């Protein structure tokens, strides 16, 4: 039996990394109970937003976030079985940006699975990304877990295929997060039909882990912290005992439980985003369960681009958020309550001033 790495062991192994500051990646340890020899881990990096300026110049800050995540994930011990990349390699989907991002990601040891982000997609409707990386939705099995990757950043066909002056005009519309003319993300009929067929083959006791770029839940439509057909996707996942959805896009800590599905977001390697409630002109729906991350210090450019150490015990996960210059956070699945809770800060009277966003 392989011992599940506990937090203390992991911290010992990565002490040097933690000393270096923020580690913008996730380690996901999956355990199938005490007698399983199929435990494994994988790393999760997301939202690098590599930005081409001109010639051979790229935005230094965003480059450094990704370079650091790659270097640190290569130092992980135990070594992850593979790495997931959660989308938005590029800022404007340019081949220069995707290539530059992939060159940095090429430094990773082992297999990398990719998720499509809207910043990778809307210049050429994902053509260059797919040419380099393959299909944008797929599934595979690994040591008893069924992994599903969805392209959740599609929108209305009419909007995507209307006569744009150029692909870049469409990209710029989608790249503006707070665009008042923004279009909602969706998985769409074709992928939902594919997902239904894909899941039909899977035993309902098999843990299922779904990766999408946007949350498959509805938080704030204005910034696409939202998937329009979220409920329809959730209903396809409903028959399974243990389902986890891991998403990028939001650049912040979020967690939730809807029925049998645990939701977890990951940090960006590039920059953090405010919580939707900070926008006081509209109503937003951050899961009540989420205790917010500490407010970022803009003077520390890697602050709030932290990482998560995640244990998956019998199909549910514990997340260990490692936050530079802040108290670490542990969000774990509480079997009694049937939802993830923060071990230190979940109770209102335990929260600290930096967790108050306004």
């Amino acid at each position, binding site marked *: 039996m392989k011992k599940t790495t506990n937090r203390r062991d992991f911290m010992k192994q990565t002490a040097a990394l933690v000393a270096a500051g923020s580690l913008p990646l996730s380690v996901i340890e999956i355990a199938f109970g005490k007698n399983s020899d199929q435990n494994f881990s994988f790393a999760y990096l997301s939202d690098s937003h590599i930005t081409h300026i001109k010639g051979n110049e790229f*935005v230094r800050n965003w480059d450094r976030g990704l370079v650091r995540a790659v270097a640190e994930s290569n130092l992980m011990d135990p070594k992850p079985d593979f790495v997931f990349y959660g989308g938005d390699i590029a800022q404007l989907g340019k081949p220069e940006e995707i290539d530059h991002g992939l060159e940095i990601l090429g430094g990773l040891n082992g297999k990398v699975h990719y998720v499509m982000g809207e910043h990778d997609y809307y210049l050429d409707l994902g053509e260059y990304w797919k040419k380099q990386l393959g299909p944008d939705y797929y599934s595979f099995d690994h040591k008893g877990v069924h992994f599903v990757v969805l392209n959740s950043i599609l929108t209305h066909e009419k909007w995507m295929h209307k006569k744009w002056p150029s692909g870049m005009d469409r990209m710029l519309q989608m790249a503006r997060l707070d665009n008042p003319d923004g279009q909602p993300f969706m998985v769409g009929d074709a992928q939902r039909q594919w997902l239904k067929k894909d899941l039909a083959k899977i035993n309902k006791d098999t843990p299922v882990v779904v990766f999408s770029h946007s949350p498959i839940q509805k938080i704030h439509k*204005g*910034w696409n912290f939202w998937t329009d057909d979220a409920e329809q996707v959730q209903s396809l996942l409903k028959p399974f005992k243990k389902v986890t959805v891991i998403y990028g896009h939001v650049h912040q800590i979020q967690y939730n439980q809807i029925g049998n599905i645990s939701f977890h977001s990951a940090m960006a390697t590039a920059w953090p*985003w*405010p919580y939707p409630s*900070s*926008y*006081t*002109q509209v109503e937003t729906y951050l899961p009540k369960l989420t205790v917010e991350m500490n*407010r970022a210090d803009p003077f520390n450019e890697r602050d709030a681009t932290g990482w998560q150490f995640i244990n998956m015990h019998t199909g549910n996960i514990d997340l260990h958020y490692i936050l530079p210059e802040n108290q670490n956070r542990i969000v774990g699945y509480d079997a009694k309550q049937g939802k993830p809770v923060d071990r230190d800060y979940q109770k209102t009277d335990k929260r600290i001033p930096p967790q108050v966003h306004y």
Partner: protein
Amino acid sequence: MKLYKMMSACLLTCTLLTICMPSSADQFTEADVKRWTNEYMSVMKQGEKLFHGGLKANNTVSCDQCHPNATNIHPETYPKFQKQLGKVAVLGEMINWCIMNPTESEPLELDSNEIIALQAYIHYERRGVALQPGKH
């Protein structure tokens, strides 16, 4: 005596001016209010454009990338102590900090049209929130 004469002359001039003016200064009309509001909204719109890439930063990074809808700026809390600047600062100084650092560009004059427009937009997105100077 000379001073007294000068003061009398001034007083007389002021009185005459007041009598001759067609209306009192506070008698503004709805049309005035509309014009002033439109002036503000026009500058606010300029600010929105500058905020969303209009500043033409050296590295192409724009304000809205980190601050969608001008969130996490908290204009209602300024002036306030910025530990990193080591002093109580006004919002314009933090805008300039952002221009110089994340967007790697040259700071603007605090009374420049651009800084005023950016503040007009930032405040507009935060309208209705109570003033809380110094809050962290």
